[in-house]
């Protein structure tokens, strides 16, 4: 859910339901790395309620697009982590297998 203004698309707050620090902190990190972002942060209005407000203010581009791009970046990071990890585990098992023989 996006709370912003129709006139100025470059700044808005996104309310994500059923989320917590797990996604919000990682998204905040990914957003910070994007040079189009002027300000970004997240807050959790109440700990008993699973709701996260992510604030994005950009240098001109619509905030929704920037958030979507950061989500994409985060997904690419995850995919790279997974492939590197799987490779490292496979290498370790190979080395261990050849050592025990």
């Amino acid at each position, binding site marked *: 859910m*996006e709370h912003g203004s129709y006139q100025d698309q470059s700044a808005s707050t*996104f309310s*994500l339901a059923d*989320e*917590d*620090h*797990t*996604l919000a*902190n*990682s*998204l*905040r*990190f990914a957003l*910070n*790395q*994007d*040079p189009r*972002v002027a300000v*970004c942060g997240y807050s959790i209005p109440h700990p008993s309620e699973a709701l996260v407000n992510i604030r994005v203010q950009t240098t001109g581009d619509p905030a*929704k697009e920037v*958030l*979507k791009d950061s*989500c*994409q*970046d*985060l*997904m*690419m*990071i*995850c*995919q*790279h*982590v*997974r492939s*590197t*990890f*799987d*490779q*490292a*585990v496979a*290498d*370790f*098992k190979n080395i*261990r297998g050849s050592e025990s023989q």
Partner: protein
Amino acid sequence: MPKVSLWDLPDLPQNQLPPHLQLQKTRVVCNNDAPTNVRSTENITYSGAYAAIGVDNSLRLDEFRKNFKVKVIKLSEEDMEFDLIGIDASIANAFRRILISEVPTMAIEKVLVANSSTVVQDEVLAHRLGLIPIKVDPRLFDYMSENDVPNEKNTIVFKLDFKCERKSGERRTVYSHDLKWLPFGSEYVLSTENSSDPTSKPKTYTSFTSSQDSLPEFSNNPITVTPGIIISKLAPGQEIELEAHAVKGLGKTHAKWSPVATAWYRMLPEVVLLQDIEDEDAQKLVNKCPVNVFDIEDVGKGVKRATVARPRACTLCRECIREPGWEEKVALRRVKDHFIFTIESTGALPPEVLFSEAVKILEDKCESVITELS
């Protein structure tokens, strides 16, 4: 720092920070009283942070791909230790949180007690049964919601039938390996059954249309629980007769569904000797450290010098800088982007699969945000 004329300052290599800023950006300095430079949110994570000096602070994808490494240190069926190098704390923490609470597992949820004459109350027994880890891959099962009928795709049924004979005269212990898997489903017949068709099979508490045995994963590999866990103790004459139904769930709802005993990470310690420490001081230093981080090396001419041999073992007990005067000699730091992850699995899935699943779950979360925004 001594006063140097502006024209005599050395040229910084392009796109690199001066060393003191580099230290502030990449290391947590652990002083005697408290760590400093911990929170990377102190205005130095955003991409334009060092724009005034002309240094690009962003961790764009290509840089990340170039620098990211994974090193597996230890891998066994139950636990693993590996290093993630070049990743930020927020993402490492996200993986840890997902491992603990959002990777699904199977655990006993409903317990149908037919007969229990033990001293252990029914609800306590049900609670204990719920905490027993079930060694099955939860990806083969679906979630069960309230309106769903329990069938072979979302439930696992176990039976516990244990009687302590009166004539034996001694107490017996009920262990978790006494739980028997029922691949055909529940055996208890629903009481509200007006059987108009006496030849049909009576309806039980679950509706398995086919035996779970017939699935290829289970045909030679019966579903077991972790053996050796004490469920209850029975005195002569007492018995337990119950059925336990296990469903898929997340650690977020209840800790019994957590696939890890625990998962944690720590940042790589870096121990640096700021001055040369020789002879007596060196021996004192080596004796102070409880995990033997330091070693003595012979420099020659009978001079002994202390070196840092095993910085990875440092537990940050700060014994080496506790006494006054030592803080200028030894610097304890942590590398901000090098995480030593340890995962201890409860047995449902091997730890490397668990980590892979956790990363997949973070990806799925991002994807759901993207679809929600579009």
